[in-house]
């Protein structure tokens, strides 16, 4: 019972990090996705490089860089802030690419139909293209969200008191016994349980997408 309570005490933090950094990524990903699709080549290259760097450098390196590297007398960053900023930026990189793929997957005929009707660019983008792209990408976004939930565990390495950190704290007092493994196993099961609702939602969205668009 005790290990379960200890691990559960980290659950709110896990959810908090996941939700906040996802929100940051979801918003920040929009301008980046537009940057990836812009006709201005230098802008596109710069954004592309930024996205590739965000995705290509391990999460733990970003977190350490933010946590230990970015402290000056004028600027302090706590472990939680570092985790949220780090995961948020990385999410923005991944989500930007997902958004871009969604925009690209909207059939060309839709752009053409809107143009042929003379619908102004902004209206056709937000009224015609974006709603369809949103449906196309929603399963990928759900998959990413599940991944992010799991990756939030890496925040434990910079001492953010989420589930794995709590599990670790308990396990260290019971080295080499079953009680030393139990909290990790409990945390693992909790992650699986947590991802189930998102996965189910994603499958529902996916099915709806098929019905609505195809």
């Amino acid at each position, binding site marked *: 019972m005790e290990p379960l309570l200890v691990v559960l005490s980290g659950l709110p933090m896990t959810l908090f990090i996941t939700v906040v950094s996802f929100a940051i990524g979801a918003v920040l990903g929009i301008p980046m996705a537009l940057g990836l699709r812009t006709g201005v080549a230098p802008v596109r290259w710069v954004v592309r490089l930024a996205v590739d760097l965000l995705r290509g450098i391990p999460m733990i390196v970003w977190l350490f860089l933010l*946590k*230990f590297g970015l*402290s*000056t*007398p004028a600027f*302090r960053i706590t472990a939680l802030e570092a985790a949220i900023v780090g995961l948020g930026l990385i999410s923005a990189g991944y989500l930007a690419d997902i958004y871009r793929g969604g925009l690209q997957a909207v059939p060309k005929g839709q752009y053409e139909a809107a143009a042929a009707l003379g619908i102004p660019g902004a209206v056709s983008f937000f009224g015609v293209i974006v709603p369809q792209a949103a449906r196309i990408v929603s399963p990928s976004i759900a998959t990413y969200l599940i991944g992010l939930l799991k990756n939030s565990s890496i925040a434990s390495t910079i*001492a953010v008191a989420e589930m794995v950190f709590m599990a670790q704290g308990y396990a*260290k007092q019971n*080295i*080499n016994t079953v009680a030393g493994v139990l909290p990790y196993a409990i945390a693992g099961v909790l992650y699986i349980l947590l991802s189930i609702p998102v996965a189910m939602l994603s499958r529902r969205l996916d099915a709806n997408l098929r019905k609505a668009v195809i």
Partner: protein
Amino acid sequence: ACGGGSGSSGAKANCTPLVSNITTIKSGTLTVGVIDQPPYSSYNNGSPTGMDIDFIKQIADANCLNVEYQQASFANAMQAIASGQIDTATGDINVTEKREQVVDFPRSIYLEGVGYASKKGVDVKSIDDIDAKGIKTIGIGDGYGWLADMQKVFGDKVKTYPSSVEMKQDLEAGRVDMIMEAYGTAVDEFKGNDNIAVEYANKNPDKRINSLVEPPEVSYPYTKGNTSLGQAFDKGIEKIIKDGKVKPTLKKYGLDEGLAEIRDKQYVVPATD
């Protein structure tokens, strides 16, 4: 009263400080980063304990300061002091030339010894034992003062760890044959463990490992240039020594009283390589 009583400083009333007008991050309060390194200090969910904590409390009292604690690690403590996020840190912090590039140290308070911990029956007691007893892997924490010397002598036999907890775990599990830990930490970690033998390494100095010849001194780093805080520490530590409180405290935590024999002139561990 210090600091003129009515101020919002929050300093203790009816108290005469050793040093007046001490600059701290939060006026009237000493913000201490606590590194988990029992028995020297452990954060303990916000109510820290340990030898260093005992000393820090005495120093703060003598200077009419409140104390606030934050969790810290060796990786970020110096950075945090240098950048003014905390006033000082505890956890068996050695006075070294590298650290002096980033922070200032007051006078030292006690010596740090090095401890060997190995399986009972192996009983490593000296550097020469390592080869003699067929040790294959030696665990040492990242940032430990003797790491560089040991790597020079033993090369790939040395395995480094992000913190002493993993290191302890691996010795118990048998993934490393011995570890070289701060003596106090080793004593504390393996207290009551019948399988592990802890030895005080400085008893058998070896000139290849500087820390064994010249045991490092421990003190409380503070932000570079904060002379008022430096003086407060100096005076506070002096008082503790003069009051003869060091040896009893060492004893209380199960450590050799010889660790109180600091040098007349502060010894700074030189930067190797």
